[in-house]
């Protein structure tokens, strides 16, 4: 796992009530018992850590926020500056 993924998993664990050590790229966010406000906090933390802005709306189910891997891909795309804005 690369630096971006490790950093994101660390952020996820920080916001979980019961952090687990078995989080991988295929882990679904719904399996992590993350509620809507937690996700807003996580997105904020990721934005802050990587210096990017993620157009995420808690009212929508966005593909980019299905699994840990999809979040990692999204962040990488934004870091490369090639990411089209996610459906907000």
């Amino acid at each position: 796992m690369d630096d971006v993924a490790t950093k994101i998993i660390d952020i996820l664990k920080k916001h979980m009530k019961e952090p687990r050590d078995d989080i991988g790229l295929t882990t679904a966010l719904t399996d992590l018992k993350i509620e809507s406000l937690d996700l807003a906090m996580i997105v904020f933390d990721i934005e802050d850590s990587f210096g990017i802005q993620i157009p995420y709306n808690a009212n929508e189910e966005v593909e980019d926020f299905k699994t840990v891997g999809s979040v990692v891909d999204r962040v990488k795309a934004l870091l490369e500056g090639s990411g089209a804005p996610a459906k907000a």
Partner: protein
Amino acid sequence: MTQSKGERRRVVVTGVGAVTPIGLDAREMWSSMREGRCGVGPIETFDKKDLYIHIAAEIKNFDPAKHVSSKKVQYGDRYSWFAARSAEEAWKQAGLPTPLADPYRSACIFGSGAGGFNTIETAYDDLFIKQKKATNPLTLLRIIGSSAAAHIGIEQGIKGPTFATCSACSTATHAIATGADYIRHGLVDVAVTGASEAVLTHGSLRTWQAMRVLSPEGCFPFSKKRNGTVLGEGAGALVLESLEHAQARGATILAELKGVGMSSDSKDMVNPDVDGPRTAMEFALADAGLKPEDIGYLNAHGTATTLNDVNESNAIKMVFGDYAYKLPISSTKSMTGHLLGAGGAVEAIACIKALQDGWLPPTVGLDEPDPKCDLDYIPNVGRAAKVSNVMSNSFAFGGLNAVLIFGQPPA
């Protein structure tokens, strides 16, 4: 279980006043609702830099010099301007003298979710960006969450209990409920109640944006396409009176405030629970001594967030059973935007107008309902219907629920 027991006086509404994105008084607001006019539009009154939410329901044509009669209030925050204007309108409609013969028999319970947010932002800009040596001397008074209540109390000569409520989006409804309680139990004869909100600022939008609950497209309650709420601003005021007091002075009674129900989810700051809203509606029915079938219209909280609208619809089904599918329901937030703390008062006024006018306001922008929201939300076009009793729901962050039931004036 009911919340309120024992001997009590009946409470009636004798005046209403509103300042909203779709009208600067209650009459104009109601005629906009009759036309299905929506007050949501592109943000024009402040800097949109770094915002990705570009819409709100702003009040764009409000001039304190023109719309606020008191010089003292003109020195206050924008939220106090809206408050004082709506309260003066309601007081005038009630036809009450200023001050009352016994000013200690009147109350002013007028809330705000956030108080003087515009003032806070200006002050911080002065201090931290412009590096000024001091804030404007009126900054503190403008910010205080009770300054609107105090201004109204001063203007109308109210010397009884005067304070603000604060419960996010249930603020106004809690204020109205508290005023009604004071009248029922004989503490006062008259109460000016309601709430005001003016948080449409750059900094405020940034905080809402960070919570990820705002829609970039529009406020579409119960719709499949809904993707968040839209912030609005404004105020609503109701003059409540004991029935005897109103009758003794020959006042025109607009409606009776028949029932109040309050509860707290006691669970989560953002995720609503079905039992809290359900219980608040049940308490209100029990308090009014009415059956679910007696309610002819329900003004829903209907914020257009994914969570609220499904949860509220489920709670309504639990309270109203099969009748839920026949009960006309609408969210007037589809037209006013979400007025936050002030929403409950403006929506109570829409309920009273519906009773008076025999016409139920629509939920605009509802072309395709969410399959999980399968009740009658009066889509897009309002409808004529003579109703005897109406219910107004307010649910707030933190799971703070308050429900009002209004009925036709006593015969």
